[in-house]
């Protein structure tokens, strides 16, 4: 098959995203731009992006249970597999996407010098991992279920259990950082960071359901988190090629 000519990236739709200024999330008040953004069609500067090959990855990069502690020791907490598929908005798989993930340990504590929560560190858990999607856009990593934790915002705000994702697609226009939540967590709908997304369906797409089909019996439960990135429009030339 010959290379399909592609146009620019479709515009990012604001309704799919959080608002910049959301006062219940207090840090957004002084960190949100107030002027209207400048729009222009994507150019080669946004349609290209860094490409990361599988040679970047170490053997334990996608195994947060074991990539930090000593050999043969595992992180503490409920063991889970997180898997899914990265596609673009037109449903095409995004192969070769780099996903970097980070999270708190099972007690809700991050390994970070600015972290002040009293829950203890786990000596076998670093909290970071990465994976590159296969030809069908699929990915998978192993970790522990992160704990919820209190954070300094309102007087008594708690983050729902979540895993942060940083995603590189094929073009810098697709660059995205998001957070995955877990089905059934009552803290999701109380969280001001989640609340910055005004569309309920957009929030629901961040909630990974339990996936019993992929559960590893006597080992780990599985959660499925599918990710959709912006896509490049087809050119008129391609439409004609398809026989319109």
């Amino acid at each position, binding site marked *: 098959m010959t290379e399909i000519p592609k146009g620019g990236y479709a515009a990012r739709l604001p309704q799919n995203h959080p608002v910049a200024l959301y006062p219940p999330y207090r840090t957004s008040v002084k960190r949100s731009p107030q002027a209207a953004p400048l729009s222009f069609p994507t150019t080669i500067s946004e349609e290209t992006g860094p490409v990361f090959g599988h040679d970047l990855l170490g053997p334990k990069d996608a195994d947060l249970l074991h990539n930090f502690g000593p050999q043969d020791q595992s992180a503490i907490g409920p063991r889970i597999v997180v898997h899914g598929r990265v596609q673009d908005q037109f449903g095409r798989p995004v192969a070769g996407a780099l996903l970097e993930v980070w999270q708190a340990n099972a007690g809700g504590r991050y390994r970070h010098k600015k972290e002040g929560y009293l829950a203890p560190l786990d000596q076998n858990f670093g909290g970071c991992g990465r994976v590159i999607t296969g030809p069908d856009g699929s990915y998978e990593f192993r970790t522990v279920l992160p704990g919820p934790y209190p954070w300094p915002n309102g007087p008594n705000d708690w983050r729902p259990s979540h895993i*942060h994702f940083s995603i590189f697609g094929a073009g810098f226009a697709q660059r995205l*950082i998001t957070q995955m939540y877990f089905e059934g967590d009552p803290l999701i709908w109380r969280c001001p960071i989640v609340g910055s997304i005004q569309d309920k369906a*957009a929030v629901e797409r961040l909630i990974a359901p339990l996936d019993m089909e992929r559960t590893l019996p006597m080992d780990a439960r599985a959660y499925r988190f599918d990710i959709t990135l912006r896509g490049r429009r087809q050119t008129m030339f391609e439409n004609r090629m398809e026989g319109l």
Partner: protein
Amino acid sequence: MTDHPETASQTAGPYVHIGCTPNFAGIHGVYPEDLGARMITGDATGERITLIGQIFDGTGTPLRDAMIEAWQADANGLYAGQEGADPHFSGFGRCPCDAEDGSFRFETIKPGTVAWPSGGTQAPHVTLWIVARGINLGLHTRAYFADAPQNDSDPVLGRIEHRVRAKTLLAQAEGSGVYRFDIHLQGPDETIFFDV
């Protein structure tokens, strides 16, 4: 084809370093090197420059927990991955802002001009992407070079309605190849961000 909505962004939060620059965060032994630590990976062609700056919030306080990424063409205006691009230049840099003064720094080369889709060229620029606690969707902007003659005909700079704000996209030469590009999230000097 069915249109699937893009996955919503969420803030990178205060612990972005754990996932994106773990060695900077003191998490050693997982990755040999933080991603994007070096843009020049060998004997790259072109003028060596250093792009520095700080990111300020609406009170004028520098962000000390932000992360900024750079993506740019090589000296000949080619992006990594394009035919003929400089094999000694990655074009991609990632910098956690300094925990004390919030400064960022990229050791890079001055990019060449690149094509504009409908013809003509864009002036040399570095695409920048900023994430941090309190920023709900990553902020996309460009650093142009204040001393570049091509700026006058750049199609993006030409689109700016409020001309007084155009200077917010210009990195200023400080001598010895150092360019300063300060970013203001709010206020009278608010940087122009893109929804490209």
